[in-house]
């Protein structure tokens, strides 16, 4: 009744090729942006911003990165954590050598370092597919993890082996380091994530996105319509690693404020992969859904019962949290193996014909 295209006539192909051809979708995006930029900063306390929204956005960005590779191009990667690490360490080294350059510039530039590494480890993808490629990227993961521990240059020979984020300002306002307020950091992260999501959505809706999906769905036919497989796959690796790299830099510089190599181990890779699979392969929106389910839901489960007046022992909450999240993952995967994004599009389809389904 409220969500349908009746009466919305397209008079040009440009309007029909738009990313959001439906008015209701555009309104929805507007509302979400308003909530993110106005409502959450106004109402949220520093806990909501610092412990929930900032990491949620960062993990969503990493999921988008992996989704470009796995969901859109069909190449499984278990090296996401390492590519995020490359971004973080690149950003750290860059800001060490050039402390006067704006840190946001370095956060973005660190994505290029990650992209280069991603392309290098993506080279085997022409010859190997599926699980075998996953194993090849796992090698990247282990090799890079080893570098993060064994190459002292990467962490400026710090005796603890960790990187500590220095204070950096933006027009006099501290945005990284201990003095930066959660509010400023939230706005920085949100702006970067929104901008990069917009760019990713432009990419996947255009020629490049169709090339990726063609390679994913039927590589023989893709080659036959003139798509060269290796450059297309490597390009997907580059863009994907770029996104992962930026999210890794954000993770360290705007959330943790410091990091040990363990942050970028294989668990991080699996963590992001779960978000992508549960959110929905081949859906940018799904990346956000996945990050919300895997990252936000446990936090909500932990802090909701005390807020509602239930006094539960904290150890008990831990167990309940595992149980509930684990069960939900299984339920969602049985209900819709294609992920939450598919559930969402089914819901929209139902809404279109409601109340007279045919």
């Amino acid at each position, binding site marked *: 009744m409220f969500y349908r295209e009746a009466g919305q006539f397209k008079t*040009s*192909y*440009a309007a*029909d*090729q738009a*990313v959001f051809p439906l008015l209701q979708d555009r309104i929805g995006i507007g509302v979400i942006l308003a909530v993110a930029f106005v409502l959450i900063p106004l109402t949220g306390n520093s806990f909501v911003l610092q412990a929930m929204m900032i990491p949620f956005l960062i993990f969503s960005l990493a999921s988008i990165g992996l989704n470009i590779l796995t969901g859109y191009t069909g190449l499984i990667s278990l090296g996401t954590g390492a590519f995020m690490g490359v971004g973080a360490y690149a950003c750290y080294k860059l800001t060490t050598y050039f402390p006067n350059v704006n840190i946001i510039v370095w956060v973005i530039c660190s994505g290029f370092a990650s992209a280069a590494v991603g392309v290098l480890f993506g080279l085997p993808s022409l010859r190997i597919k599926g699980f075998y490629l996953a194993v090849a990227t796992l090698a990247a993961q282990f090799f890079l993890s080893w570098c993060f521990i064994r190459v002292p240059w990467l962490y400026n020979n710090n005796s603890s082996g960790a990187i500590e984020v220095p204070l950096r300002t933006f027009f006099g306002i501290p945005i990284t380091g201990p003095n930066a307020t959660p509010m400023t950091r939230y706005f920085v992260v949100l702006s970067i994530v929104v901008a990069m999501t917009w*760019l990713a959505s*432009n*990419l996947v*809706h*255009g*020629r*490049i996105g*169709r*090339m990726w*999906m*063609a390679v*994913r*769905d*039927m590589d*023989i*036919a*893709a*080659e*036959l*319509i*003139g*798509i*060269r*497989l290796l450059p297309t796959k490597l390009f997907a690796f580059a863009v994907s690693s770029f996104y992962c790299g930026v999210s890794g830099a954000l993770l360290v510089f705007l959330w943790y404020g410091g990091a040990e190599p363990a942050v970028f181990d294989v668990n991080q890779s699996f963590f992001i992969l779960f978000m992508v699979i549960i959110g929905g392969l*081949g859906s940018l929106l799904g990346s956000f859904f996945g990050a919300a389910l895997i990252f936000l839901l446990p936090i909500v489960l932990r802090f909701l019962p005390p807020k509602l007046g239930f006094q539960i022992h904290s150890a008990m909450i831990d167990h309940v949290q595992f149980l509930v999240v684990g069960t939900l993952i299984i339920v969602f995967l049985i209900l819709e193996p294609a992920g939450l994004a598919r559930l969402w599009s089914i819901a929209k389809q139902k809404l279109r014909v409601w109340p007279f389904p045919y």
Partner: protein
Amino acid sequence: MNAHNPAIVAKGDTLLSIENVSLAFGGVKALSDISFDIRKGEIRAIIGPNGAGKTSMLNVINGFYHPQQGRILFQGRTRAKMRPHEAAAGGIARTFQNVALFRGMSALDNIMAGRTLAMHSNFFWQLLRYGPAMQEEVVHRRRVEEIIDFLEIAAIRKTPVGRLPYGLQKRVELGRALAMEPQLLLLDEPMAGMNLEEKEDMSRFIIDVNHQFGTTIALIEHDMGVVMDLSDRVVVLDYGRKIADGTPTEIMANQKVIDAYLGVAH
């Protein structure tokens, strides 16, 4: 018509010629010493019993297999060993025996993907989806809509192809090949598994493509009625060898062809 091909071959001249091509997989000889040509503007059928090497022949033409012997001339030039994407850039399009559509994409996106080679806007405009990238998108969408109109699939353009019935999937696949504006269109059993009505539709599309766009077509088909009605010339393969080549009437009267299909008394 095709920016990649400066060499224009006049109608009736040889577009593609296969000369003494042999292809073997280990000890299995898939094709032995085959020669035939395809003329610009004709519908050329390749027929033969199962396992005769018809699909292998198409795979050789569009670069999936590289023959051990013989040479292939396309538009008068000897073709070096080439990859399928190079064959595509040279103006050879193809549909498959088993539908090979991009299942996760809509019919429209599948056909738009067929325009990939013709689209050139760079990465930065693609990122912004603005300016040249968007203009290009609209220009090619218009071209794709003409194909959609032609194939009468306007109603299903936004449907994911995985949900379409088989006959329509075949039609979308033909659309994707047409979107490449090919010089030579290879159709591998375009009517396999279709009912009579669908076969009639598909035959009409093939004839219309040939007449309206002047596209040269090479097709493999098992339905002899269709082959004899559609094609200008027929080449017959059996056990990897060419046993006959000629007009449909000649082929129907050819004793070797009849023997190959029906068997010979011993």
